[in-house]
């Protein structure tokens, strides 16, 4: 019987061997999805957010909270579409971001620390898990693309900086260096030599996001929130266009 033709009255849950095979299939897909998202999302993130996530001395008040959620909401939106619309599983965003963090931690430890000798504290990744959880909660409770894009997308961006400040705030303590003041993060950049990363390459604290005095972060966060609502919608539809359940229908 084709799954797509099941009616509520004729529905019978799987039992016995069918149930066991169905469960094995669940785990198979989960493991494959985990590795797929670890690889694909991590690559996407490294290519788009890149240095802002790699280095502690790139995590500024302006571009880091603008760029990271904007690029970070992409895969979660697409995967949420599939997970929610096809399976009513409100865990797409959390799964994606957790996979990203696994990939990121593996890279930071093995590639940056053991292979290239950087101290891990210089390359600590940021977390987007609180935003991802809220994104999943809002989708589940609203069952609405519009509401999730507006409120979930905005929450994903707005929660990013405050959820990371407990991790990275201590790297913003001032240090006297060379008759001037720098942050501990800047000192990492100065001391731990990166041949391909001269100081001037950092895209930090530039531009005109200073309209409201020195409060650059809230401005960036709200700009990111606005853009995330649009980015969420775009990637939701990317998820819709590129996903299929045709194989499930043949079971």
């Amino acid at each position, binding site marked *: 019987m084709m799954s797509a033709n099941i009616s509520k009255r004729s529905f019978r849950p799987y039992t016995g061997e069918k149930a066991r095979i169905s469960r094995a299939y669940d785990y198979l897909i989960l493991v494959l999805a985990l590795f797929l998202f670890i690889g694909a999302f991590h690559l996407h993130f490294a290519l788009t957010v890149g240095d802002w996530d790699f280095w502690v001395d790139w995590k500024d008040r302006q571009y880091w909270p603008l760029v990271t959620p904007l690029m970070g909401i992409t895969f979660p939106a697409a995967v949420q579409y599939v997970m929610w619309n096809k399976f009513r599983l409100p865990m797409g965003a959390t799964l994606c971001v957790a996979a990203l963090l696994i990939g990121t931690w593996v890279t930071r430890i093995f590639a940056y620390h053991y292979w290239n000798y950087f101290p891990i504290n210089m390359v600590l990744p940021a977390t987007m*898990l609180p935003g991802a959880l809220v994104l999943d909660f809002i989708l589940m409770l609203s069952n609405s693309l519009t509401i999730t894009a507006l409120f979930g997308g905005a929450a994903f961006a707005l929660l990013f900086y405050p959820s990371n400040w407990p991790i990275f705030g201590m790297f913003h303590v001032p240090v006297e260096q060379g008759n001037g003041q720098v942050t501990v993060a800047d000192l990492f950049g100065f001391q731990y030599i990166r041949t391909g990363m001269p100081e001037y390459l950092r895209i930090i604290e530039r531009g005109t996001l200073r309209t409201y005095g020195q409060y650059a972060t809230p401005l960036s966060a709200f700009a990111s929130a606005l853009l995330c609502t649009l980015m969420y919608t775009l990637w939701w539809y990317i998820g819709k266009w590129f996903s299929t359940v045709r194989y499930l229908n043949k079971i």
Partner: protein
Amino acid sequence: MKTILVKTLTAFCLIFSVYLINVQTAMAHGEKALEPFIRMRTIQWYDVHWSKQAFNVNEEISVSGKFHVAEDWPIGVPKPEASFLNISTPGPVLIRTERYLNGKPWTNSVALEPGGDYDFKVVLKGRMPGHYHIHPFFNLKDAGQVMGPGVWLDIAGNASDFSNQAKIINGEMIDMESFGFANGVLWHAFWGILATAWLLWWVRRPLFISRYRMLEAGMEDELITPQDKLIAKSAMVAVPVMVLAFNAMANNNLPNTIPLQASLDQILPLPAKVNAGIVNVDTLKAEYRVAERAMKFDLKIDNQSNAPLHIGEFSTANVYFLNKDLPVAHQDLSDSSTVSVEGMSLDNNDAIKPGEQRTLTMIVKDGLWESEKLDGLIRDADSRIGGLLFLYDLTGKRYISSITAAVIPKFN
């Protein structure tokens, strides 16, 4: 079939093992990759000296030297409005503890002035034991990396002995190697546990096929239970509240934080040391003879000093051509492997007298033009040469000119 597979695998292993016999660590870092006209006519290094080339983990050494920023800066290369004196290392095997430009501490990037003279010093501290080929070099914004002369450094000891303490502004000492790491792991673990709990909450029940069938059967209400909704509602409030509370706690614990610092350091050039106006050198013509690996210069030299002078050395892109007949010492080139000791010849080696203007021919000839990939100049879009010409009086006093000219290739 099995035999074929075994044979194929054996052949593959044998072939692969041939490569393994001669595996060597790559030591190059693209020092000859940049086009010759950029290496010759941007940063012109001289007098570069390492305080020590063999030292231990935790021991400090320094590299110091001078450079002239060429007046004939290539039109195709952006002006050095943001430049960073760096050290080419395979990762932070050394750390940079201090850096000075013209005696001033220098942390960020700096704008260099074409025609300007600078001296530098970088203090480094051994971190990872090993044998490394290291250069000072300039990162030039939008132009690339212009290498200074390289040396081999040997760092002995244990990496685990390395220590790097820094004093934050309240006087507290921190260990840069571990600062903030445990705290970071703690927060990642905290949010990771919450996320894992949420994922397990769903993964513990039948997932894809079962839920898809139920959804298609119109049993959506059974897929999300009231308990699920209650948890989601509670967590949707709790997560943002926790985020804001932890953020407020961090703010309270860290009342005196500052944003990342991104200023451009302002350091003026030294009084002129190169092209200082006492000895003026004009390059009338430059010709590269491909077959001979020789560059021929016609030079017009005006000696306005009060002493007779000899041409002692021509250097470009860290290649040094010496006049073996010079009666006084050259700059210390004991660290360098790119010295052509007898590479320079002059059609008139007599001293240039005070007040004399002389036109002479200088030929600098060596295989280094080819091995250092400088002969590619004739195929550059901007095939002009630049370099430093060193003239000495009998007391060893030195006059330096930055010379430049278009290069005419002679292929036969």
